[in-house]
């Protein structure tokens, strides 16, 4: 769906030295995948996303979305996008702004109201409906930004720092939302400084620093979690209870199990029972997620 091949982007100001924001990056995000892009500020994440949107053109290499040049794709289908920094006229009120953007997103006139109400509810913006954008808190602004990105049903969603500056409640809300956004024909790319939060959401997390991807895993087909999914569950102790709670689970060693469930409700019930039995859960991730070895090793050591 999204494909970057040996992409570099160099900014060459009239005065001063050229700076390379992205350096020979190759990345593929397939349909049905959620891919995270983790890196510190100035790592090149936003530039990479701007290339995917066609807001910038690469100095070298190619960017394709659904096989075509990004700008053409955007003008044809649109992309659900949260830019960083996120800016709209501060005088616009929340629901008015969403209604305007829904019109531009192509949402049908008869559905605009319902769609706006739905995203307002999903993002917990009910109390801010009539407030002007300039008066929103940082947390509410980020949630508004995500709301406008998911107004219309898009095959590609690109979010730049959607987890930045959020309260714990908002983080939980967004995590749940991202799970519901997963669809077999949708590619989701999320950039964040918070690698740990990304690991909990994404199937793969690609670290980027100083414009270079440190290590990339190839994309592979994924299983939509909405119907049936496999999760990797790691327990620090109490591994003996896992098979009792999830009889079909497969032990992968070092306290890690592959758990197949028919839905999130079943998974959560099982986890609650596991905790009640005294197990200590170290991590939980979709089976397609590739957790960085550095992040995994302390947990695995503890579990062994």
């Amino acid at each position, binding site marked *: 769906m999204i494909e970057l091949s040996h992409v570099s982007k160099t900014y060459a100001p009239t005065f001063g030295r050229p700076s390379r924001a992205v350096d020979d990056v190759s990345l593929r995000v397939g349909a049905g995948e959620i891919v995270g892009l983790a890196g510190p500020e100035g790592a090149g994440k936003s530039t990479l996303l701007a290339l995917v*949107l066609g*807001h910038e053109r690469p100095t070298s290499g190619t960017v394709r979305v659904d096989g075509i040049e990004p700008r053409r794709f*955007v*003008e044809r289908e*649109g992309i659900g996008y949260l*830019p960083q920094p996120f800016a709209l006229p501060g005088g616009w009120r929340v629901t008015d702004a969403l209604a*305007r953007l829904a*019109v*531009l997103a192509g949402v049908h006139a008869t559905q605009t109201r319902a769609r706006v109400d739905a995203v307002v509810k999903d993002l917990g913006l009910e109390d801010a409906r009539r407030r002007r954008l300039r008066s929103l808190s940082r947390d509410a602004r980020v949630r508004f930004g995500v709301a406008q990105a998911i107004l219309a*049903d898009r095959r590609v969603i690109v979010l730049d720092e959607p987890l930045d500056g959020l309260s714990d409640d908002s983080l939980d809300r967004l995590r749940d939302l991202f799970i519901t956004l997963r669809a077999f024909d949708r590619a989701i790319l999320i950039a964040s400084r918070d690698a740990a939060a990304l690991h909990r959401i994404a199937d793969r997390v690609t670290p980027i620093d100083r414009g270079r991807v440190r290590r990339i895993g190839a994309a592979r087909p994924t299983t939509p979690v909405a119907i049936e999914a496999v999760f990797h569950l790691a327990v620090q102790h109490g591994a003996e209870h896992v098979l009792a709670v999830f009889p079909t689970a497969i032990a992968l060693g070092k306290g890690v199990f592959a758990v197949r469930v028919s839905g999130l409700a079943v998974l959560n019930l099982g986890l609650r029972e596991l905790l009640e039995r005294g197990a200590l859960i170290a991590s939980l991730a979709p089976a397609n997620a590739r957790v960085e070895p550095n992040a995994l090793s302390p947990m695995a050591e503890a579990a062994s």
Partner: protein
Amino acid sequence: MRARVSAYAGAQLRDYLVGRVPLTAVATGLAAWGYVYTHGLTWSAFDATGGIDARVQLQQAFDFVLASFAFLAAAFAAHGLVAKHRRRGYDRVIFSRPLSPMRYYAQGFFIAGLGAVALGSMAAAFYAAAVYPVSVIGVAGYVALGWLSIGGLAFLLSTLTVFHAPLLLAIIAGDLAFDRYVSGLRASGGGSLALDVAQYVLPPGHVVASLSGSFARGASIDPRALAWPVAFGAICIVAALLLLRRRPFGT
């Protein structure tokens, strides 16, 4: 699912009414006050029944205010249309939707022009009813001419650079100054063909400025006088739209 750009026209008109109309009204009011102050006019000068002198004064004052309005309304209509979006990053949000920047800004420019013409017509109708008869249709045509030529230039500059406002002022001021210089030379028997050609192909601010009286009185206008302002505006608008088609965002 394509953007419903036509349905967005109402929002663009509202933006114009809320954001540009007050600015245009205040700036035109200041220009009118400046004219009255520098010419030492008093309220009695605006009594149209006060004889021929009063009527001439009134016409001259109206011609000046109309020319000021046409310039200001056109400049404000296109002011920062593209540059403001780019500078503040609104374009990144708007153009992640399935719509063409060319279509979006062309519609915005057109609606702002319609707003300017409607505003000018209403003000002229009020003036005609309350003070002295003027051609409302002529005023509407004049504001449209200003929007096409000066507004077209402002639109192009806004597409090119964030320094569009000072650049527009400098171009118009330079144009008027050069026109005055060449006209002065010609009056004193000087001038040359090259200067005449240069004067003709300058941005047509000086041509538009000189036509306000004829339009306000509904007089017939020599089409040759309109040719360059119309052509200049059309060239600017087409160039702006082509630039929007080709130029990446965020630059």
